[in-house]
């Protein structure tokens, strides 16, 4: 085998390339100067503090949170029964249904945003927020179905059959036997859906209007106008938020099994 040092060198270089940039934005956000520079111009927390005072960031953060939370919940409401049906029933046209539900994965987000703007928002008077909500739900749905299906497949179906034989209703068997057993899968699906939705950019490129902007889009337009370190500070905060979420999920759920 090749030597320990070569191994370390290769891994070290790759991780520097993959993770190094995050340390740079964390530090760049700490700058005391008016413009983005690295190494930073003195050290201060002013740009980190400023992030919280920019009103458009606060509004777009709220919208992104709303979409990520409720889009994922809606996807789970649609997706959990679908995953249950796919793994427990022989549904007619099962393959077609699976293909339809999985389709959003292969459609690039920018196209989705444009299509929904042109055919739902303009002619049918959907609000932009509602269209965004629809798009996020449809995009998260395939992940929700996949993750929940895989934890459903690990659960033996004779347990709920036994519950039904012992007099439990079908719904009762689902809520009392199946749901408690797949709850960590559902939680993993929620986290994956939340992160996917929160980080999603292209869908919202066309689906934005006055006062309705998701956080990443707001950051993109902010950095076109100004070159101060607040976007770096905000990026660093978002990266840390993801790290915390993933770390907790891994610790309590063994998240990587589901992804």
């Amino acid at each position, binding site marked *: 085998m090749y030597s320990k040092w070569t191994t370390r060198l290769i891994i070290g270089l790759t991780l520097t390339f*993959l993770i190094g940039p995050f340390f740079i934005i964390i530090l760049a956000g700490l700058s005391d100067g008016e413009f983005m520079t690295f190494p930073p111009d003195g050290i201060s927390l002013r740009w980190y503090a400023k992030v919280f005072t920019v009103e458009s960031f606060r509004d777009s953060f709220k919208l992104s949170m709303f979409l990520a939370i409720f889009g994922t919940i809606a996807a789970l409401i649609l997706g959990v029964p679908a995953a249950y049906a796919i793994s427990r029933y022989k549904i007619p046209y099962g393959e077609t249904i699976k293909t339809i*539900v999985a389709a959003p994965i292969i459609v690039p987000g920018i*196209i989705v945003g444009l299509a929904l703007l042109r055919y739902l928002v303009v002619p049918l008077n959907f609000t932009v927020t509602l269209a965004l909500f629809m798009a996020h739900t449809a995009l998260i749905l395939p992940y929700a179905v996949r993750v929940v299906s895989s934890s459903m497949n690990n659960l033996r179906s004779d347990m709920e059959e036994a519950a039904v034989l012992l007099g439990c209703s079908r719904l009762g068997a689902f809520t009392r036997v199946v749901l408690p057993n797949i709850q960590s899968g559902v939680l993993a699906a929620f986290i994956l859906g939340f992160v996917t939705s929160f*980080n999603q950019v292209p869908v919202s490129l066309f689906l934005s209007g006055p006062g309705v902007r998701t956080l990443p889009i707001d950051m993109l337009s902010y950095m076109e106008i100004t070159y101060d370190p607040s976007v770096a500070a905000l990026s660093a905060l978002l990266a840390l938020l993801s790290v915390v979420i993933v770390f907790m999920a*891994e610790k309590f759920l063994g998240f990587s099994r589901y992804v």
Partner: protein
Amino acid sequence: MFQNNREGLALALPAAIFTALFFLLPVGFLLSEAFKVDGMWSMQGYFDFAIKPLNQTVFLRTLKLGFLVALTSAIIGYACAFSIVNLEGKSRGRVFGLVVLPLMISPVARTYAWIVILGRTGIVNDAILGLGLSDTPIRILFTETAVFLGLLQLFLPLMIISLVSAMENLPKDVIPAARVLGANWLQVFTKVILPLTKDGLVMGGTLVFTGSLTAYITPAILGGSKVLMLETLLYQRVNVANDFVSAGIIATILIIMSFSANLLLKRIAKARS
């Protein structure tokens, strides 16, 4: 397995109907616009699109960058995956976790860092000026190099993950066996490792390639209007010119490419199981 199929259908249909109505139908309408020129059905839009030099450049550039990113990530990916597989249990899990982690972080944050690194007053230019390699800052941002680096950083983890899982299935003693029998490292790679991990390579390659083709943020932030790729071109055509024919055509190209990649992946997954 329950036999009441109607019940199963009732549980699965809402999800399918939702996606079909609010997702697939609008996207289908958008794709059909490419065949409508002045209200008439025709292929004229496709011909007009194909002969424009800008469209050709952007199309070829997108393919070229996708290919280069996939190739480079395969080279780095093999070295890195091989090293990761050679690590002991605990540090192996940790390193793998660090490789996967960037995938969960906002791509805007991930791409923004490159502005700090590659910009006029960025780290690279500081180093170049400091070492006296050039008198003026060189332009790296808004070039293909910048887009290439951004895409590579964004998608390399996908290649490493695919290759690590392929190499974990490699029998432990095939490499020492090949060495003992007199193969040099190049032969070990081309005759033993490559054939046994080619599924992982194809899987990682397709993920990286399609990821790069359909990336928006990286070319938008690091390439700008100087280095357009298909997605940024689509955005520009709609925003600047209200040109929905071109938008429909680019959308069709992108969907066909990611659909074929997806088919390929499914076939590999099937062959494996």
